[in-house]
C-alpha cells in the first residue's frame, strides 16, 4: 500500500526550528529549515545527519520548501546548504526571497560579531545559498521534476508567507507553515481551495486558544498604550522587525493621527527601514485595503513613527518604542528593558509568543526578579502586559482551514505537546479524520488510497453505461470488463478483446440446480404455470417460452421433466451463467414461494 512518511526534525511537539521531512511516492521533500531561539548550542539547528550520515544531502532530497522568512523557518538554511551541503532547488515566494537574506545576515551578525561565535555561516554563504533559491508565485504550479509538483497558497501570517501543496501523481500533502485566518491591518487571511490532500501538516501554536475579536484586542492594546503615555510613562513593545511590527505601527499611527497625540513613537532602526521598503515594494501581497489606498498614501510611510537612537532611551517624558527582537532575549529591546524595568510607570507589552527560556517568557510567567549576565539581579517593577497579536491561526482558524481543505489526515506541528493533544482530540471528534502529532525524529506513516487511472475503450464504456440504470452522479458504478496490466499500463477492455489479445479460448461456466416440486400435472402444464408465474413476477425481464418446452429468462434456462420414479414430482432444471446473480436469487425465492 502506498504511504506517506513524515518525520519532523524540528517543530515536532515544539515551537521553533521548523524542519519536516516528507517522503511521498518516492520523493523526499524538506519543509522549512529553521533555527531554535531557545538554544545556543548545536540544538539550535535541525539534526541533518538524520537524513544521511555521509554523502551529499542533494542525493537524498528532491527539493526544499521555505514557507516564510521567520528565522525559525529559514534560519538554518545557509548552514544546511553551504556547510552541510545541498545543491538542489530551494523554493520560496518572492517576498520571502527578498527579505530572508536580510534576516539571516542580521542573525549572523548577532551570533558572530556580538557573541563572538566561530564556525558559523558567513555572509558569502548566505549569498551562495540564496542563489539556489527558486522564487514562486501564488497559485503557480511548479514542476520540480516530472512527477513532483508544488503550488503556493496565500497564508497571511507575514509578508510573503505561503502554504505549499506538494503533489506527486494523485497523492498530495499540504504544509501550512504559519498562517492566519483573520485578516489584519496589513495582510489578508489565508485561503486554500478544497484540494482534499491526503495529509495536511498544520501549525498549532494556538491550539487551545480562541481569541477575542481582533477589534477588542486592538482596542485593549491602544487603551493600555494611551493610558501609560498619558501618565507620562514609557511603553516598550518588543517586536520582530517584520510582521507584527508593521501591523502595530499602522495601528498606532492611525490612532495617533485620530487622537492627535504628540508623544513620540520610535522604531529601532536598522532592519526596519529596509523592511518597510519591502513592504512598500510587495504591496500586492498585503490586504485589500492597503492595496486600494496605496495610490493616495502608502500605509507604510509613517508620519508619527521615527527612527530610534540609543540616546533617546534616557529622554524624559512619555514615549513608545518598538524594539527588536520580540522575545527580549537579546539586542536593543533587552537593553531598553533593563533601563526602564525599574519604574512602575512604564510598561512593556509583549505582542506575541515567547519561547521558553527567553526573558520575555520569564516575565510573562510572573517572574519579578531576573538574573542577568554577570550575576546581576534585575528587579522588574514596570507593568508587564501580554497581547496575543501574533498572526497565527487560533483553534477556530485551524478548524476552519481543515474544513476548507478537507484533508484525509491531519498532522500537527509547531506547537506544544499538551495543547496539541487537546486539539488532536477535537479534530478527530469533529472531522472524523486521523490526526497525528509526531515528536522530533519520530516518523509517522500514513497509508494512502490512491486512485489509479485506467484506460478504457470508448466502445466498452458506452456499452456498459447503456446497460442498467443511468450513470448516477458521484456514485461508483460496477462495470464488466477485463483489466489488463501490461508494460506499466492499465487497460480495461471487454472480455472478448482480452481473450483475443491473450490468445485464449473462451470457456463458459454454467451453474445448474434441480428443484423438485410436487405437481401432478403434465410437464408442459407445469412449464406453463412456471412461465405464467415468472411473467407475473419478472415484469422487467424478457421471459420466453420456447417451442421445445423450455423457458428462458434472459440467459437462464429452465426445463421441467417428470421425475423418473415419481410422476407427481416434477424436476425443474435451472441453469445459469456465472454472471447472473440477482435474477437467479429472485427466481429461486419466487419459485420456492410458489411451490
Amino acid at each position: 500500500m502506498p504511504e506517506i512518511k513524515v518525520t519532523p526534525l524540528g517543530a515536532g511537539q515544539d515551537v521553533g526550528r521548523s524542519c519536516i521531512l516528507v517522503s511521498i511516492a518516492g520523493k523526499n521533500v524538506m519543509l522549512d529549515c529553521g533555527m531554535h531561539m531557545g538554544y545556543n548550542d548545536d540544538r539550535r539547528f535541525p539534526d541533518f545527519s538524520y537524513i544521511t550520515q555521509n554523502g551529499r544531502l542533494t542525493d537524498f532530497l528532491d527539493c526544499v520548501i521555505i514557507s516564510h522568512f521567520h528565522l525559525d523557518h529559514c534560519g538554518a538554511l545557509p548552514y544546511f546548504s553551504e556547510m552541510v551541503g545541498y545543491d538542489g532547488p530551494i523554493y520560496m515566494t518572492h517576498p520571502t526571497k527578498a527579505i530572508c537574506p536580510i534576516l539571516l545576515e542580521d542573525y549572523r551578525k548577532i551570533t558572530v560579531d556580538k557573541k563572538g561565535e566561530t564556525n558559523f555561516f558567513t555572509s558569502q554563504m548566505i549569498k551562495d545559498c540564496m542563489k539556489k533559491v527558486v522564487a514562486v508565485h501564488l497559485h503557480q504550479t511548479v514542476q520540480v521534476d516530472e512527477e513532483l509538483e508544488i503550488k503556493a497558497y496565500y497564508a497571511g501570517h507575514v509578508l510573503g508567507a505561503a502554504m505549499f501543496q506538494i503533489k506527486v501523481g494523485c497523492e498530495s500533502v499540504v504544509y501550512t507553515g504559519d498562517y492566519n485566518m483573520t485578516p489584519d491591518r496589513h495582510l489578508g487571511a489565508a485561503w486554500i481551495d478544497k484540494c482534499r490532500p491526503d495529509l495536511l501538516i498544520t501549525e498549532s501554536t494556538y491550539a487551545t486558544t480562541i481569541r477575542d475579536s481582533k477589534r477588542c484586542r486592538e482596542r485593549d492594546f491602544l487603551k493600555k498604550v494611551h493610558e501609560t503615555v498619558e501618565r507620562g510613562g514609557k511603553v516598550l513593545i518588543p517586536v520582530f522587525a517584520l510582521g507584527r511590527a508593521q501591523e502595530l505601527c499602522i495601528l498606532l499611527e492611525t490612532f495617533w493621527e485620530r487622537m492627535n497625540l504628540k508623544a513620540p513613537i520610535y522604531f529601532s532602526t536598522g532592519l526596519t527601514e529596509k523592511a518597510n521598503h519591502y513592504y512598500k515594494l510587495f504591496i500586492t501581497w498585503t490586504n485589500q485595503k492597503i492595496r486600494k489606498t496605496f495610490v493616495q498614501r502608502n500605509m507604510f510611510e509613517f508620519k508619527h513613527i521615527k527612527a530610534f537612537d540609543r540616546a533617546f532611551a534616557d529622554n524624559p517624558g512619555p514615549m513608545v518604542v518598538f524594539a527588536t527582537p520580540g522575545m527580549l532575549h537579546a539586542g536593543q529591546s533587552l537593553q531598553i528593558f533593563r533601563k526602564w524595568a525599574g519604574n512602575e510607570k512604564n510598561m512593556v507589552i509583549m505582542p506575541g509568543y515567547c519561547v521558553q527560556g527567553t526573558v520575555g517568557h520569564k516575565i510573562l510567567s510572573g517572574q519579578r526578579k531576573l538574573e542577568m549576565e554577570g550575576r546581576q539581579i534585575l528587579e522588574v517593577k514596570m507593568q508587564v502586559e501580554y497581547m496575543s497579536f501574533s498572526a497565527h491561526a487560533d483553534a477556530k482558524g485551524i478548524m476552519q482551514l481543515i474544513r476548507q481543505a478537507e484533508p484525509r489526515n491531519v498532522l500537527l506541528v509547531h506547537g506544544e505537546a499538551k495543547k496539541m493533544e487537546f486539539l488532536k482530540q477535537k479534530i478527530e471528534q469533529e472531522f472524523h479524520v486521523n490526526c497525528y502529532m509526531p515528536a522530533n525524529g519520530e516518523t509517522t506513516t500514513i497509508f494512502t488510497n490512491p486512485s489509479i487511472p485506467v484506460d478504457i475503450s470508448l466502445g466498452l464504456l458506452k456499452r456498459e453505461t447503456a446497460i442498467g440504470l443511468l450513470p448516477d452522479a458521484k456514485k461508483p458504478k460496477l462495470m464488466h470488463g477485463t483489466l489488463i496490466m501490461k508494460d506499466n499500463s492499465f487497460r480495461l477492455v471487454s472480455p472478448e478483446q482480452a481473450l483475443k489479445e491473450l490468445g485464449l479460448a473462451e470457456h463458459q461456466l454454467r451453474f445448474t440446480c434441480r428443484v423438485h416440486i410436487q405437481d401432478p400435472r403434465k410437464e408442459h402444464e407445469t412449464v406453463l404455470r412456471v412461465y405464467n408465474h415468472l411473467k407475473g413476477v419478472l415484469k422487467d425481464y424478457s421471459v420466453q417460452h420456447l417451442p421445445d418446452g423450455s423457458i428462458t429468462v434472459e440467459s437462464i434456462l429452465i426445463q421441467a421433466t417428470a421425475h423418473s420414479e415419481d410422476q407427481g414430482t416434477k424436476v425443474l432444471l435451472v441453469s445459469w451463467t456465472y454472471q447472473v446473480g440477482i435474477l437467479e436469487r429472485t427466481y429461486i425465492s419466487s419459485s420456492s414461494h410458489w411451490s
Partner: protein
Amino acid sequence: MAAHLKKRVYEEFTKVVQQQHEDLSAKKLRLTKPSKSAALHVDLCKATSPADALQYLLQFARKPVEVESVEGVVRILLEHYYKENDASVRLKIASLLGLLSKTAGFSPDCIMDDAINTLQNEKSHQVLAQLLDTLLVIGTKLTENPSVRMRLVEVACKHLTDSSHGVRNKCLQLIGCLGPVEKGVAKEAESQAAKDVQKIIGDHFNDQDPRVRTAAIKAMLQLHERGLKLQQAIYGQACKLLADDYEQVRSAAVQLIWVLSQLYPESIVPIPSSNEEIRLVDDAFGKICHMVSDGSWVVRVQAAKLLGSMQQVSSHFLEQTLDKKLMSDLRRKRTAHERAKELYSSGEFSSGRKWGDDAPKEEVDTGAVNLIESGACGAFVHGLEDEMYGNCVSLLCLDIREALHELLCCTNVSTKEGIHLALVELLKNLTKYPTDRESIWKCLKFLGSRHPTLVLPLVPELLSTHPFFDTPEPDMDDPAYIAVLVLIFNAAKSCPTMPALFSDHTFRHYAYLRDSLSHLVPPLRLPGRKLVSSPVSPSITPHEDPSQQFLHQSLERVYNLQHLDPQGIQELLEFTIRDLQRLGELQSELAGMADFTATYLQCQLLLIKALQEKLWNVAAPLYLKQNALASAAAKQILEETYKMEFMYSGVESRQVVIIHHMRLQAKALQLIVTARTTRGVEPLFGMCEKFLQEVDSFQRCFIAELPQMQGSFVDKLLDLMPRLVTSKPSEVVKILQTTLRQSTFLHLPLPERLHRASANIIEPTGESDNPLRFTSGLVVALDVDATLEHVQDPQGTVKVQVLYPDGQAQLIHPKPADFRNPGPGRHRLITQVYLSHTAWTEPCQIEVRLLLAYNSNRSKAAAKIAKSTWNESLEALPQPETGIEGTIPFSKPVKVYIMPKPARR
C-alpha cells in the same frame, strides 16, 4: 460579438413592434408579408454552405417581421430546420424561433407542436438547449394555459436525462418557470412525470455537474417565488449542499435554506449525532452563520446579507453571533446551549488575553458534540473582521455623528453641567474629526441660543478669564476656540449681562467673527457699539414681513410702469435689480426669491438694451461690432433662463412658462441679429423653420397658460403665425423685430417658496501654500468636501469641474455613494477628485468648482411635450428640441496649489 449581435436583434424587434402600433397601414403590410417569408425561403434555398445560410439568417434577424407574417416565417424556418445538416445553422434557427415567438401580439401556440417535434430527432446538445430555451419563451407567453405548461414540463422532464449540462440546465429552468404551482393541476395531470415537480428538481440537487446543481436550486427558488410552498423535506438536502465544492452552489443553497427557514420556522429538526431536536429556523440560522466564514467571498456576502433578514430566531442564538468565544454548537436547545456555555466558562478554551491561560485543562465534557464546527458564534465578529468591511464603517460613523449633532441642536438641557459636558464632548469630537467643524459650530449655535442662562455661569471658565489677571489671548484660528465663542455669543444675544464678563480681546474676536462667520454669530447689543441691523423676530409671518412687502412693492412698481420712455425703464430696472440683490444678501430667507426676480428683470433689461441698439437702424454689413453686443445679450439671456429654470427649487409651471417665454424672446433676438449680419438667405431658412417649430412646441406645451399671456410676444406671434409660415425669412425677421419691440413685459408671479441651489466647498480650503506634489503622468487624489443646499437629485446633476492653468477643463462625475443627505434640502458631497497633468516647472493654482448639470429634456416643459405628443399624435411631429445640455457653476471656485513634478528616470 455574438452577444452584441443578439442584442441588436432584440433591439430591432422591439423597434418593429412599436412602429406597427403607430402606423397600421394595412396595404403596406399585405405587400411585405409574402415577400418577407418568400425572400427568406429563396435565400435559404440559395445558400450553398452552412456559412452562407448562417449569414442569411443573421441578416434576416436584423430585419423586422410583422405579427401577421410570423407564423409563415416560422414554418419556413422549420422546413429548413429539418433539412439542415449543420448544427450551427440549426442552432441559429432555434434561437430565431424563440425570438419570433416573443413578437408582441403573436400567439405561439400554433408553433408549439412543431417546436416540440423538433426536439425528438435532435442530436446536438447545444441545439437541444436552444430549442428548450425557445420552448421556455413559448411557455412564458402562454402561462395562462395549464395544459400547454404541463406538456412543456413533460418534455423537459424527458430531457432531464441528457448527458449535457446545458440541456439539463435549460430543462430545470423550464420546470422552475412553468412547473405547476397549484395543487389541483398536479393531481389532474395524467403524466407521472409532471406530478411532483419538487421531487424532480430535488433529484438534481445531486447532479454531477455543479452548474446543473445550481440550476436545480435556482429552479426551486423560482417555484417558491411563483407561490409554490416548498416541502420541508428539501431542507435536509439543502443543508448537504452547503458543503458543496462549488461556490455558486453553496451560495444558492444558502438562499434556499433561508427560504425554508422562513417557511417552516417552528418545525423541529433533529440534531445529527444526538437525539435532541431544535427549531428549524434556529438550525438554519446557525448554518447560515457558519457560512459567514466560508472560503469564498461570494458565499460570505450572500450569507451575511440573508442573516440580516432572518426573523423569529431565538434570542440566545442571536446573542451568540456577537461573541466569538462562546463555542456552543447551536445544535441543541436550551440545555445544550447552557451546557456549552458552562463549557466555555469552565475555560476549556482560552481567550488569548492572558499569558499562560491557554494551558489545556482537563476535559470537562467528553460527549460535547462538534464544539467548533457550525456555530453561530462570532458570525458578526467574523464579518466585521472581513477585509471588505473596513471602509464602510468609517463612512457610517460620519453619518451617525452628523445625525447626533442635529439631535443636539434641538435638545433642551436642564443643568449647566449638561451644557458643559456637551461642549466638552463636542470639542473632543472636533479634535478627533476636524472635518466636522461646520456641523459642530452649528450645533453649538443652537445650544447657546437655547440656554443663555445656563451658559452664563460658565462664561468665565470657558473664556478662562480671571478677575485680577490678564490671561493670554487665545488663538483666533483655533476651531475649538471659535466653537466656544459661538456658544457664548449666541447665548449673549438674549442675555445682556453676559458681555460684561468678556475681556477686551473677546470683543475684538466678536467683531472678527461677526464678519467672517455671520451665519453663526448673531448681532449683539454691545456697550459703545451700534447694532448693525435690528434682528427680525421670527414671529412675523412672511406676509407681514416688511422685507417681503418691499420685494412685492418694487416688483409692482416695475410691472406697472409699462409706458415709460426706454431710458426711464432701463434706469428703474437697474435700480430695482440692485435693490433686490441687496435684499437677497440681507435676508437669507428671501434670497432665493429676490435673486430669482432680479435675474428675470436682468433678462428683461438686457432685452430692452439690445433692442435699443443702433444696429437696427443701419444697413447690416456696417455694424458688425454692435451686433456683438446684441448677440451677447441674447446669449446671456439664454444662460440666465436656464439658471432660472434649473437652479431654483420650488419653481412652478407658472414660472416655467414665463422663463420659456423669455427664452423664446432671446431666440428671436438671436435670429434677428443673425439675419442682420449674415449674407445670403440660405442659412436663414433653416433657422426660421427651427424658430417656428419652437414657437409651435411652446404653444403645445403651455396651451393652458396662453390666455394669461395677453399682449405678450408669443401671443402676438401666434396671431401672426399663418402669415409667418408662408413668408420669406427676411419678412419673418421683420415681423419678429416689430413684435419684439411692441410686446409687453410679462409679470413673473412668485411662488410660495423658492430656494436657490448653492454649494460651498469646505475642503480644499484654498489657503494652503504648500503645493500638492506628484509625479507627472500619475494621479493625485484631491479630497473634496462640500455642502449643497436645495439641490434636487444631486447624484444626477452635481459635477466637479477642475480648471488647469492652461485652460484645460476636466469634468468629474462623483459617485452616487459620495452624496450624503444629512437633512431635508441639504446634501454633503465627500469625494475624491483625481488630478493629473504633464510636468510643470513651478507650482501653479488650479480651480475646483461645482457645477449643476441640466438637460432641457428633463425639465417640466419637456415632460409636457412628451405627454402631448403621446396623446394627440397621428401626424408626424417635429421632434421637440433635442435636449440642450449644459452646466451652471453654482459654487465659488476654490484654488488648489499643485505641482506635477517630472518623473525621475
